[in-house]
């Protein structure tokens, strides 16, 4: 059971790069690292996923060091619409006994 730890909240100005780090010291060999974004009154939305090294897509980058005990979600040039709660999830839903646990999430506030 890979418990995750994230900062409770972060503030940023529009246009800046935001990096949110998640600690997961007990990550298992088969576990993936996945980040979700949640707006009020909506379900979480998948942002990005990785297993090791670096992954980049059109909205974010995910950096994973060699030991995989942490990961960093990088949001380039945030806008007001990026204000949301960001969750780090570690696990593997293909496992028969895996228990996927969302952390408390990081509340990102973007202002002008």
């Amino acid at each position, binding site marked *: 059971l890979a418990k995750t730890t994230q900062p409770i909240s972060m503030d940023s100005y529009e246009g800046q790069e935001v990096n949110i780090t998640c600690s997961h010291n007990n990550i298992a060999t088969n576990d993936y690292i996945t980040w979700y974004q949640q707006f009020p009154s*909506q379900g979480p939305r998948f942002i990005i996923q990785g297993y090791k090294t670096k992954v980049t897509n059109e909205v974010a980058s995910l950096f994973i060091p060699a030991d995989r005990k942490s990961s960093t979600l990088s949001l380039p040039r945030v806008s007001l619409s990026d204000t949301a709660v960001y969750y780090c999830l570690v696990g593997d*839903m293909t496992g028969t006994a895996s228990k*996927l646990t969302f952390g408390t999430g990081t509340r990102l506030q973007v202002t002008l």
Partner: protein
Amino acid sequence: DARVTQTPRDKVTEMGQEVTMRCQPILGHNTVFWYRQTMMQGLELLAYFRNRAPLDDSGMPKDRFSAEMPDATLATLKIQPSEPRDSAVYFCASGSSGRGNEQFFGPGTRLTVL
């Protein structure tokens, strides 16, 4: 645009009543999850199914909650009898095994038990 659908979107009921929430996963997804979200506890995994078989329901109060997948297009979460502490938003999500933790969430059912 494939989406997970949930019904009802909102439900207000009185303590002791039975509540049934329904979820239609994305066609082709073989894994379905039920989560509960509250301000105090955050997102909690209640149960999940793969290929319609329950794999883990350890997060669910067994005495009053039950989850089933009568077919590949329908997942249900039932609470009987409901209690005020069950008030929360219940999310269903679906995904495909082999794609890590990529889950697609529905809009949720907001349950209020008076």
